[in-house]
C-alpha cells in the first residue's frame, strides 16, 4: 500500500491554490482530508503528479449562520459537523449523516468538501444535500459560482465541478417553522459506507399537512437521487404511519440499482423503501413536535 511518488504544495490562499491547479492541469489534485484520495493513490488506482493541499487556506473551514440559513466551509470535518449545535438544531439530518460516516478517525480528518467533490455513490452527505436543497459554492479562475443540489451530482464520482475549480462552501437553507429532517442508513459492515441512506426533510403546515418534502437517497444507485414520487405522494395531506409506508415503498421502485456481493439490486431497492419510510417517519415526528 505504497503510493507512487508525487509533488506536494500547500498554498496559503485560494488564488494561489487555483493558480497551482491551473498550472498543473490534469496532473494536479486537490488534497483535503485525504480519506478518499490517499486510499486510491495507495492502491495505485490514481497517481496524480501534484497534490495541492488546501488545508492552509484561511476561511475554508468552519460553520457560520447566514441570512436564511447557515454555511459550512469545505474544509470542515465530519466531526465538527456532527458535533455542531447549530447543525444539530437547523439540519439534524446533516449532523446524523456526518456522525454516521466511517469511524472516529475518518470523521476527524475527512471533510464535507472532499466528500462532495469525490461523489462516491455510497457517501452519506449527498442524500442530505439533496433533501436539504443545499447550494454549493465553487471558486475557479473565472470567479465564484453557485450550484444547486439537484444539479451537483452528475454521475458516479462525477459532479458539476469543472477541472481546476475548488469547492469552497455549502449553504443549507433555514428550516421552515414546522420543519425537520432525519437521516438513516444501512451501513456496509466493513467500511461503514451507505448501502442505502435516506435523508428526509419536510415542513408541516398549521393543520399538520405536508407543505413540502424532499427525500434524498444515496448508496442505492450510481448517483444519489431524489425520490420524487415519494415526495409527490406525501405532499398536501396529513401523513400517517401507513401513508408514509405506502408512499415510501416507491423510493426504490424502477431505480437502476447498484449490485455487488454485499447487496443485490433488488435488496437495495427494497432497502430504499424501508429506510425512506423510517427517515420520513422520524422527520415527521420531529416536525410534529414543533
Amino acid at each position, binding site marked *: 500500500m505504497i503510493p507512487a511518488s508525487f509533488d506536494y504544495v500547500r498554498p496559503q490562499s485560494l488564488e494561489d491554490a487555483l493558480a497551482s491547479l491551473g498550472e498543473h492541469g490534469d496532473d494536479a489534485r486537490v488534497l483535503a482530508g485525504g480519506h478518499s484520495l490517499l486510499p486510491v493513490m495507495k492502491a495505485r488506482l490514481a497517481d496524480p503528479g501534484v497534490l495541492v493541499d488546501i488545508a492552509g487556506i484561511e476561511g475554508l473551514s468552519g460553520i457560520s449562520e447566514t441570512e436564511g440559513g447557515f454555511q459550512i466551509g469545505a474544509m470542515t470535518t465530519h466531526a465538527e459537523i456532527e458535533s455542531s449545535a447549530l447543525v444539530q438544531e437547523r439540519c439534524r439530518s446533516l449532523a446524523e449523516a456526518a456522525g454516521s460516516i466511517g469511524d472516529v478517525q475518518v470523521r476527524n480528518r475527512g471533510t464535507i468538501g472532499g466528500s462532495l467533490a469525490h461523489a462516491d455513490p455510497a457517501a452519506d452527505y449527498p442524500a442530505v444535500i439533496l433533501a436539504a436543497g443545499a447550494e454549493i459554492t465553487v471558486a475557479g479562475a473565472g470567479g465564484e459560482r453557485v450550484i444547486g443540489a439537484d444539479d451537483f451530482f452528475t454521475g458516479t464520482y462525477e459532479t458539476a465541478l469543472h477541472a481546476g475549480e475548488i469547492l469552497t462552501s455549502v449553504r443549507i437553507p433555514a428550516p421552515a417553522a414546522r420543519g425537520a429532517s432525519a437521516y438513516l442508513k444501512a451501513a456496509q459492515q*466493513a467500511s461503514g459506507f451507505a448501502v442505502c441512506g435516506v435523508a428526509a426533510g419536510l415542513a408541516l403546515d398549521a393543520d399538520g399537512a405536508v407543505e413540502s418534502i424532499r427525500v434524498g437517497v444515496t448508496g442505492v444507485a450510481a448517483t444519489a437521487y431524489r425520490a420524487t414520487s415519494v415526495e409527490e405522494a406525501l405532499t398536501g395531506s396529513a401523513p400517517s404511519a401507513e401513508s408514509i409506508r405506502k408512499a415510501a415503498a416507491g423510493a426504490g421502485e424502477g431505480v437502476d440499482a447498484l449490485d455487488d456481493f454485499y447487496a443485490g439490486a433488488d435488496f437495495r431497492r427494497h432497502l430504499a423503501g424501508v429506510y425512506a419510510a423510517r427517515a420520513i417517519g422520524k422527520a415527521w415526528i420531529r416536525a410534529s413536535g414543533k
Partner: protein
Amino acid sequence: MAQAPKFIGAPIKRRDDPRLIQGLAHYVDDFNPPGTLHMACVRSPYGKANIRSVDVSKAAAAEGVVAVYTHEETKGIGPVPVGGLVPDAKVPAQPILADKQVLFAGEPVVAVIAETRYGARDAADLVEIDYEPLDAVVDLEAALEPGSPKVHDDYESNQAFTWAIAGGDVEAGLKEADVIVKEKMTNARVAPLALEPRGVLAHYLPGEDKMTLWTSTQVPHKVRTLVAGQIGMPENRMRVIAPEVGGGFGSKLNIYREEALAAFVTRELGLPIKWVESRSENFMTTIHGRGQVGEIEMGLKNDGTITAFRYNVLADCGAYYQLLTVAIFTLTGLMLPGPYKIANMEMNATGVFTNKVATDAYRGAGRPEATYILERMMDIAAVELGMDPVEIRRKNFPDKSEFPFNTSAGLSYDSGDYHLALDRALEAADYPAMRAQQEEARKDGRYLGIGFSTYVEICGMGPSAALGGQGWESARVRVEPTGKATVFSGASPHGQGQQTSFAQIVADGLGIDANDVTVVHGDTDVVPYGVGTFGSRGTVVGGSAVVYARDKVRAKMAKFAAMEFEADANDIEFEDGKVFVRSAPEKSAGFADIAMMAYSAIALPEDTDPGLEETHFFEPSNFTFPFGTHIVLAEVDPETGDVEILRYVAVDDVGNMINPLLVHGQIHGGIAQGTGQALEEEMIYGEGGQPLNASFMHYALPKANRLPRFELLHTTTPTDVNPLGAKGVGEAGTIGSTPAVVNAVIDALSPFGITHIDMPLRPERVWRAIAEKRA
C-alpha cells in the same frame, strides 16, 4: 508447593499491555539494521494463468534497484514445506516464485530488491509479465464435476485427497432412528487477519557464516529447521527471532515463501533483506481458514437420543497446501461427536484443489466447523422433534461419572461435567425469562431468538504420537545469582500473555514475587528447542514444562539450603522471598543468598554441580477437552435483515485458570471472531479467481459496537493430563460462539418457518430467506 498459591489464579494485568498500548513494542518492521534492502513481490492478478514471458529489464535498471529475482534464479530453494498429510493426498510442490503458471491471485512471480521500500514498490510496477489467463476453479462442487477446469494440469482431477473416519455403524444407527434430519451447510472460507501482517527480516553475516531471521511467526524453531532446509544451510547457523508478534490465530503457524526467499537473498547479497506484508497481500497470500461444504445426516429416537451422525464434506485446500492444510480437516472428524454420546459417526472428506490461497489453521482449526454443524443439527433436530434445544442436548450428554469418556471418534475426553456448565448458563441467562421476553416481543412484531451452543473442544496439542510428532514443549528456568528468575520457554506466545502467567507459575513455586520473574521466548539462540504456540497449547503444554523445570531448580536450591542449615532437603520451604527449614523456621535465609551460594560454589552439596538452571521437555499424556455452554439472545429486523446481539452469556470450563484476566481476554476475542464468522466474514471470489473483498473496506471484521457486554462465567473441572490442571482457552470462544449466534438468529426466524441459513448471516441473506418464505 506447600503454601496456598499466591499468584496462580490471580487476575494480574498483562505485562505486555503498557508497551503495546504506548507503541513501545518491537515488531519485525521496527528492526532496521544498517544497509537494509527492501523486497517487493510482483504477484499474479489472475486465479490461473500461463506465464508467457517475464521481462525484468526495466525494473532492474530502475534507480535504487539492487537485484531482481524470478523463478530461474530461485529454483534451487526447496518447495514450501507441508506436513500432516493423509495417505492418498496428492502433494503439488509449491515453488518460491511461480515458473510457467500461476495458480492463485497473489502468487508471487518476481521479487524486486531495492534500497528503499518505495523504490522496490515502484520498480515492481516496471516488471512486465505476459499472462495468458485460464479458466479458474472457484466453487468446490463444480470443481469435482467432470469437465471442470483443473487447478493442476498434470493431475487427473481437482480431488486433492480423501479421508474418512468412522466409529460404530452409521447405517445401523440410521435404521434404528425414528427420525432422520438432513441439511447441507457451509463453513465459509474466512481470513485470519492478524492485526500485524506477516513480515520477515533476514540478515546473513558472511564472516560469521550466520544468519538471523526475524519473522512474525508462532513457531520460530519450525521456521529455523525448515527454512534452513529449504535454502540448504545447517540449521545451527541460523537464528530465528519472533519478536513482538501482533497476533497469528494460526495463520503464522506456517512456513511461507517470503521467509525462504528473504533468507536466500540475504545469503546472496550479504545485506539485510526486509519484506513486510501489506494488508492486501495479507488477504491474498496468508492462509485462510475453514472452507467446508458438506451434507449432514443425523438419526434420532423420538426422545432425542442421537443414533447416528454422518458428515460428507468437501474441503477447500486452495491451490497448494501449506504446513497443515490437510491435517486441519481431520480435526473436524475427530471432534464430530462433540459433547454427546454418539455411538455411530462418520465423516467422509474429499479435499478439493481450487485456484485460491491455501486454507490452514485458523483459530479453532477444524473444531469450529465440527461444532457448528453439530450444534446447528441439534437445533434442527429439536425443531423436528418438538423438543426444547436444552433438553435435546441434555439427553445426549455423558454424565460426569462417565469420564474419562471414550468417543466413537476414538478420543478419550479427560474430564467434564457438561450438565453443570449448562445449568450455570441457564441460571445466569434466566432462560425462562428469556423465553418469556421472546414471547412478548413476538406479540409486538419483534423477532427475538435464543441460541445455544454446548461445545467441547480439543486442546493442549498434544501427545506427540497423536500429532504425528512434536507434541511436547520445552522450558528452562534459571535462578540468577541475585535471586531473580528467568524463564526461557520453547512456546512462542504472540499476544496470549504468557510473559505474565509463566511468571505467576514460577513465582509461586519458588516463593518469590512475580515481578522478579522474567519470561523470554521466541529466540532460537536463547531458548531451548521448542514447538510453538498454537492449538491452545501455550500454557497447557508450555506452562507444564515450566512447572517441571521450576521444580528441578527448586529441588537444587533446597540442597544448597539444606547444606547451609544442616537440615534435610525435604524439610526446606520457600516463601515470601525466604528459604527456611519447615521444622525449624528460625533457620532462614534470603532467597537471593541461597542463589548466590549456588553460583559462588565455594561449597557444594554432595553430588551437586554449581549453578541454578534446569530444562524440562514436557510430553503430555493426552489432549485436554475444555467445554462449556454459550447462550445468545439476538434480535432480527425482518425488514432490513439486520441482526443485533442483545445478550451473550458464556460458561466456559477451561480447567484451572492461571490468570482469569487472561482467560477472559481470550474468550472475549474468541467470541468476537466466532461472531464475525457467523454474521459477517467470508472471502468472496469472482469467476476468474480474484478475491472481490480483499480489503478492510469490503471484508468486515466484527467491531466492538456490534457486540454486547459479555457475561462470562466458569465451572472448573481440572484435568490430570498436566500438573497445572489447565485445559487451554485460546480457541474456546471462537468454537462456542459461531453456532450460538447462528442458532439465535434461526430461532428468531422460526415464525417464518426458517430452519437454516448459511453463514455469514449478512443482512441480505437474512432478508432473502424471509422473502422466500413470505413468497
